[in-house]
């Protein structure tokens, strides 16, 4: 369209003012999605209410013209334009419901609704399964008697034998004896808390020690226990070093090594979920472990940097 052929350019003030309702609607949808993960009952309902209210206001404003409600405009401009329009071309026969406007709005509106109906479930399907219904694995490490007091083992096992080798994990295990009536274990995950590489025990294993590897067959398939005398643990990727309680002694790691929660069930050592540790005071059965919810590698869990990670995805 050439402006010169059709009179002056469309007056800006004739157009509806930019509206904030769609933004509010989007915020509502976002709150619903966050709520589905965090707390479906409360937060999602709040989000739904926000979305419905803003959606209604949005639809109301968007259809104001179609429903015959005059849009708020500057009166002088309107008169001038009306006068100019009256002079320039014959008065329109029907101004309330121009069919072309209705069809334009219907096409865009229906297209938008259909697009939304298709996009929302697909987006949910793409994103939500990563966060919902995460499986919790327990690992049967075998009989308590396989772990002589004070000895370290490198235990490798599959958290889910059905899934295969990709679920293979390693833990450093030491029986600390009995505290009161409860057996005490140090169970350190070997995944480095810098970026997740496998840390290695710094010390002799197997033949050098003159000791044999132990293989246990449990509900989790084959469990390999390699005796080791570690001076600490080290990561081959970027050089982080940890002492035998998992405290960081050098390198880029941001906290102590993660640990496995455990319980003794029918005389067997059962590994539960992992948790994060900022640091450990003392050693063995006397260790005071500063526990935190499981966080990803490289994430600070204490100090001011913890505020960089305020909301963790659900974890088991």
């Amino acid at each position, binding site marked *: 369209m050439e402006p010169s052929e059709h009179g*002056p350019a469309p007056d800006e003030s004739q157009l509806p003012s930019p509206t904030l309702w769609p933004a509010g609607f989007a915020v509502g949808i976002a709150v619903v999605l966050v709520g589905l993960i965090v707390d479906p009952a409360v937060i999602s309902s709040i989000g739904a209410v926000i979305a419905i209210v803003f959606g209604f206001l949005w639809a109301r404003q968007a259809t104001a013209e179609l429903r015959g409600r005059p849009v708020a405009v500057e009166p002088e401009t309107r008169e001038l334009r009306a006068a100019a329009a009256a002079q320039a071309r014959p008065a329109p026969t029907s101004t309330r419901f121009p069919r072309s406007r209705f069809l334009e709005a219907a096409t865009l509106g229906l297209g938008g609704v259909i697009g939304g109906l298709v996009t929302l479930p697909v987006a949910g399907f793409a994103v939500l399964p990563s966060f919902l219904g995460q499986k919790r694995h327990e690992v049967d490490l075998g009989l308590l008697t396989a772990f002589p007091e004070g000895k370290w083992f490198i235990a490798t096992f599959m958290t889910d034998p059905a899934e295969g080798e990709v679920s293979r994990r390693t833990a450093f295990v030491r029986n600390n004896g009995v505290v009161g009536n409860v057996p005490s274990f140090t169970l350190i995950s070997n995944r480095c808390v810098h970026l997740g590489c496998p840390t290695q025990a710094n010390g002799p294993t197997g033949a050098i020690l003159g000791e044999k590897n132990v293989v246990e067959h449990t509900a989790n398939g084959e469990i390999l226990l390699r005796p080791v005398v570690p001076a600490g643990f080290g990561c081959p*990727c970027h050089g982080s070093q940890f002492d035998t309680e998992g405290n960081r002694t050098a390198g880029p790691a941001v906290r102590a090594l993660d640990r496995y929660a455990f319980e003794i069930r029918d005389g067997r050592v059962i590994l539960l979920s992992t948790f994060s540790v900022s640091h450990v005071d003392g050693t063995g059965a006397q260790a005071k472990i500063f526990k935190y919810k499981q966080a*990803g590698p490289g994430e600070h869990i204490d100090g001011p940097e913890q505020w960089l990670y305020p*909301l963790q995805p659900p974890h088991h």
Partner: protein
Amino acid sequence: MALRRPPTKAELRREQMLSLVTYPLDWLEERSGLVGGVRYFLFRKVPGDINWMQTLGSATLTAFIVQAVTGVILAMYYQPTPHDAYSSIQNITDHVTMGWLVRGMHKWGASVFIILMFLHMGRVFLFGAYKYPRELNWIVGVLLLLMGMMEGFTGYLLPWDQTAYWASVVGINLNGTAPFLGPWLAQFLRGGQEIGADTLSRFYSIHMLVLPGAIIGLITLHLYLVVRLGVTSPPWSKEAAGTERPAAPSTVRQGLISPAQGEPGGSE
């Protein structure tokens, strides 16, 4: 058409051969205008003093096409499951006829693609070809660079060997350390808490469907803008910037400039 003398047999045959070629092209042109469009795209006017540096964009496009074609063929033999991925890669390399070649082209071509993107970017930067009115094409180019690097990241996991696995562990956890949304991004990339079957098939899908689709769309936009805005002269060009070049199609320039000039200062 009136001929002064009857055509010789050789002339008739030549005419027949020519129409054999031109008839389908004319048929297509009459119904779609595609032949003219392609001719315009390939043989459009460019400044007389451009140089070989300005072929780096086409070289990058060629590298992408090589990646796309070899990738499609590799997808016919590759299996994105933890159990079969590595053995299917071994099969492609060792047993499928010419598999070693196609996989090699895809593997080394990936580096060529990234390197050419950076060289092309450097050329555009040093020639000042990102300046008005071509800023949008620079932005599209940056998006293409990001998509290319994401292709590299997702493709690296697919051989499913130790290097692939641990590099992806580190790469995903690196994303995970980004403030606020990092842990969520990492879990989304893994498709769960741990790397597993879902991670592999998800990376495969992103690598061969999501990103190539986006890249093709962005390349189309990139090329459209190149054709619309024209190719820049090198900075040492003798022709003063902004002057009318006799060789350049003046309509393109006028089409670009007149709407901005024709806009009235104020309404009424």
